[in-house]
């Protein structure tokens, strides 16, 4: 450490101008901004290479007839026009919306309920909390989807239980309604990450509120509705937005368990995009679909935020 320093010192004494330059360079090198940029360089490169550039490329492809391995020709908005005449596309939009509208509230309600019980001071609460979190950790994986598929297969656990109860077997994956139900149940089962966030939020609510309500003679239900829900509403908003976005993009379950069937009843948006892009090579068409998805999700998120002022409670307002 000492040697190089004295070396630079000796050098700079020779030539004042050179010293000036070197100092400027050092200033640049050691300034906070430079360090900041250098440290964020890995992210910036990743963001440009894996996010921004692909997004722009897909925007270009969405106005071409690009098929994998072939030339892309500009065709204007034809893909977008074709989409709205495509019955399967309309259907995939419909089933995705059904899935989102049912699975997100069910999942959040379930997560809140479990979080509510797990914030009570009881023995082993942390253990149970981790236990309930496990399904979310492995949630997106193909393995879980395969397990789920096996449970509801013709000779699976679900039918074995039905048979044990003396009921008829059900073709779970063969009936459009039950197939969708299975996917929704699987999503609700993966409530862990929302639950952890709810649990953290519940702990933040000051106990004095509850004590005051107790003195005023409020019952448990009243306390929940008048204290817990309003105090938790910012966190509900956060969970709602995050879960809605991820539900719109759900792919693995439908891809592994139902493959979009039966009769396209679980042909989720993301799955249909995947099939067009990678199975049938219609990259241009799939890109157009992805852009519509982006617009829908953005619009929906915006709407949720706009309505939030009517139901999200913040302490500063009151």
């Amino acid at each position, binding site marked *: *450490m000492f040697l*190089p*320093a004295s070396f630079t010192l000796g050098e700079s004494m020779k030539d004042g101008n050179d010293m000036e330059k070197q100092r400027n360079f050092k200033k640049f*090198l*050691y300034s906070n901004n430079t*360090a900041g940029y*250098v*440290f964020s*360089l*890995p992210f910036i*490169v*990743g963001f440009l*290479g*894996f996010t921004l550039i692909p997004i722009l490329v897909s925007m270009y492809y969405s106005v071409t007839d690009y098929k*994998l*391995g072939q030339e892309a020709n500009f065709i204007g908005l034809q893909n977008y026009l074709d989409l709205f005449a495509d019955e*399967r596309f309309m259907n995939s939009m419909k089933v995705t919306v059904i899935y989102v509208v049912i699975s997100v509230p069910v999942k959040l309600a379930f997560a809140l309920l479990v979080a509510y019980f797990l914030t009570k001071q009881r023995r082993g609460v942390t253990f149970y909390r981790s236990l309930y979190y496990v399904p979310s950790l492995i949630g997106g994986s193909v393995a879980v989807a395969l397990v789920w*598929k096996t449970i509801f*297969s*013709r000779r699976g656990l679900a039918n074995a239980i039905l048979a044990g109860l003396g009921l008829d077997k059900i*073709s*779970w*994956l*063969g*009936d*459009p309604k039950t*197939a969708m139900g299975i996917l929704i149940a699987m999503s609700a089962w993966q409530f862990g990450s929302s639950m952890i966030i709810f649990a953290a939020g519940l702990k933040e609510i000051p106990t004095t509120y509850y004590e005051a309500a107790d003195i005023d003679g409020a019952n448990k239900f009243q306390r929940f509705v008048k204290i817990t829900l309003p105090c938790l509403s910012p966190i509900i908003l956060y969970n709602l937005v995050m879960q809605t976005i991820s539900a719109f993009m759900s792919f693995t379950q439908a891809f592994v368990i*139902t*493959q979009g*069937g*039966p*009769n*396209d009843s679980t042909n989720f948006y993301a799955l249909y995009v995947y*099939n067009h892009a*990678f*199975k*049938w*090579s*219609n990259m241009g068409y799939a890109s157009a679909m992805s852009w519509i998805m982006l617009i829908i999700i953005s619009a929906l998120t915006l709407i949720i935020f706009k309505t939030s002022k009517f139901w999200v409670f913040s302490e500063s307002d009151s």
Partner: protein
Amino acid sequence: MKRKKIVCLLLSGLLTMGLVSGCGSSSSDEGGDAKNETKTEDTKKDDAAKEEASGDKITLRMAWWGSQTRHDATNKVIEMYEEQNPNVDIEAEFYDFDSYFTKLDTLVAAEDPWDIIQMGGNFPKYENSIEYLDSYIEDGTIDVSDTTDAFLKTTQNNNGDQVGISVGTNTYGIAYDPAMFEEAGVPEPTDDWTWDEWKDACLKITEELGVYGSSKMDNFIAGVTQRVSQAEKDANFFNMEGTGLAWDDPEPIADYFAMIQELTEAGAYPDAGAIKEIKDIENDYLVTGDAAMTWVASNQINSIVNAAGREIKVAPVPRMEKDGAYGMIVQSSQMLCVSKTSEYKQEAAKFINYFVNDIEANKVLNGERGVPIMTEVRETVKAQADDSSKMIYDFVDKIGNFPVENSNVISPEPKTEIEDYDKLLIEKVQYGEMTPEEAADDLLEFAKGKF
């Protein structure tokens, strides 16, 4: 402090470089440089090592789809080849059918497909990425002296270019459980049985035994491409040039839809959910005893028989009329191709030659991909065949001896999309959302729109 900062700078710089080079494909130059470097290192260290390293180790990438039996056998043959050719290193990848083509599609788009590609009748879509093998046959790299022009023709395109070398021929049929037929009192299929007989057998078996009459059918072949060729001799659904349809009568297609609908309603054919539960041929409902028949490619008979562990026989696909056309020929089940972008085309061709001609290798492969096209290889494999394999040879011979018909077995580029649409239509008909006639009209219209 300063040094710490510089170290940090260097480290983050390195990380970034790693990230950047990580994304880029390892180009041939890089690889070459790295090898040269290790070579000089080795020269200094040790003479024996130099001997090995200077032999210019080349790496060939190869991939295929198939069952576990195929993966095991092919890996074994690759090992044997590497032993005989120490300078060649073959990196093998294997997938199920759908993933294989998804992966190939992305590799083709990146202009970096495997050196040796396994390919089926859907080659027109990938022809731009495939090196024709004619010149390799001419210069003797690939020896075809032991096969016939007819066999070579099974893997040529319309211009007569040799797209690949067939690693086996096959044809389709109906595998069935004779014991179940007997138990249900249904006569066993004959060589000229009809779809009506097939349907009646399905219904009767379901009624008597409570199992599916038939497991999953290939509804696109049985219900569309072969059916069209059966409805009118020498007619085809796709034209020979692969540029469009050569058929516009919805009636035979509608009849097939109606038949499947009737069987599904009677519980003689699996519904859409049950179909999705069949993971591979080893888990087919015929194997598990839940069905009396199933659609089968002749090279899969072995797997089915082994997995079922009981007597399974195979019959030709039913016809529309007793004396009508059969609509199907013996075809190349799959071929090996060399990619146009391969660095080592010559070496890849050499491996293909080994794969199709070497007797020891084929003893291991055991005709699992289909009946070999090389005469001596075929005789060897036949000689070591067990009963179920013998059945394959007899069956393929039988179909090969049917009167010659002009059936198109090459699939044009949009075939997958049309086939998937056909699957959807079958479900729509099964769930009563469409009549068979509407579905057939819709299919023709959709298929036309794809060209």
